């Protein structure tokens, strides 16, 4: 199944194909190339939406993929490949944010304050006023709630998948998402004086 047209495959079939290429020594390199091409963009945006900085995201993406390369041969297929990779990215990003929060607390500032301060001046952030207001509202959410919101709203992941990634129940996630959406809408409306 080496020269398969991936465009004709479902997501699940694509992932199985990638895994079978990687498991075989002769096709491993090709398997890695497909894995990277399939997931690097999605992982990038998942992380970027959490950490905001392009430079930090770039570092984290590479670290996540190194973890993926090191552990993929022992991947047990109990979950989908994409879920497994998103899970690594989620946990790695949370750890990064925890350490950032800790370092900022020593300087009596918060991660969110620093992001807001730098966001408008960031050349890799281009938003009109409404979008900036939205991003500020999202930034005001607790870290895990923010992660759930962005995975559902921006990445269109199912609650089932997010549950597997975050090791949280679907019910708790739906509640969390609902609360997050309400908070954001309220903040956006307040800012817009509607």
């Amino acid at each position, binding site marked *: 199944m080496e020269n398969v047209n991936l465009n004709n495959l479902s997501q699940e079939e694509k992932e199985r194909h990638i895994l079978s290429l990687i498991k075989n020594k002769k096709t491993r390199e090709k398997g890695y190339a497909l894995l*990277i091409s399939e997931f690097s963009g999605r992982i990038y945006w998942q992380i970027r*939406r959490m950490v905001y900085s392009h430079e930090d995201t770039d570092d984290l993406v590479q670290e996540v993929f190194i973890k993926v390369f090191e552990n993929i041969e022992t991947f047990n297929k109990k979950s989908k490949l994409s879920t497994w990779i998103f899970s690594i990215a989620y946990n790695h990003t949370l750890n990064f944010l925890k350490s950032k929060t800790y370092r900022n607390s020593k300087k009596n500032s918060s991660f969110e304050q620093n992001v807001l301060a730098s966001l408008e001046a960031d050349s*890799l952030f281009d938003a009109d006023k409404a979008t900036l207001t939205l991003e500020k509202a999202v930034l005001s959410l607790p870290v895990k709630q923010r992660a759930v919101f962005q995975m559902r709203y921006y990445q269109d992941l199912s609650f089932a998948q997010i549950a597997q990634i975050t090791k949280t129940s679907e019910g708790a996630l739906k509640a969390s998402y609902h609360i997050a959406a309400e908070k954001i809408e309220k903040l956006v409306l307040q800012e817009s004086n509607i």
Partner: protein
Amino acid sequence: MISKDNPFKVPEGYFEQLEKRLNQKAKTKHVSTPRWLKYVSGVLAIGILTIAGWLIVFGDSSLDLKSNPTLAFLFGLDEQEKADSLAKANRKAEQIAWHSYTEQMKKEADEIVFSEEELDYIAEITEEDEEELLLTNTDM
């Protein structure tokens, strides 16, 4: 509801570059040591350290390893040989302890200072040879 416009940008050509870098990292990962070789290296390292430790501890060529009861099993000694080896080791330990004790006694004897009266008394009750023995021999 809320716009899904993405305000976050990436430098031009970033994703192509990212894929190249990640592919390079994937290749590097597979040039690294195979797992089985890591296990073999670990076992070899333990072996080398054990031999080095052995040489440091038992490097003294004058030491008869066979007489060491702990190591007797390495030489496949039978029960009698093990008992003999243990007895020999015990005797040697006793000799070392006794030697140390006599050395200590001699040192203490050198520090004894007899008074004039005591020296006269010793002279009275002993002959010359015995006198020298009393004053110098700490074994008595």
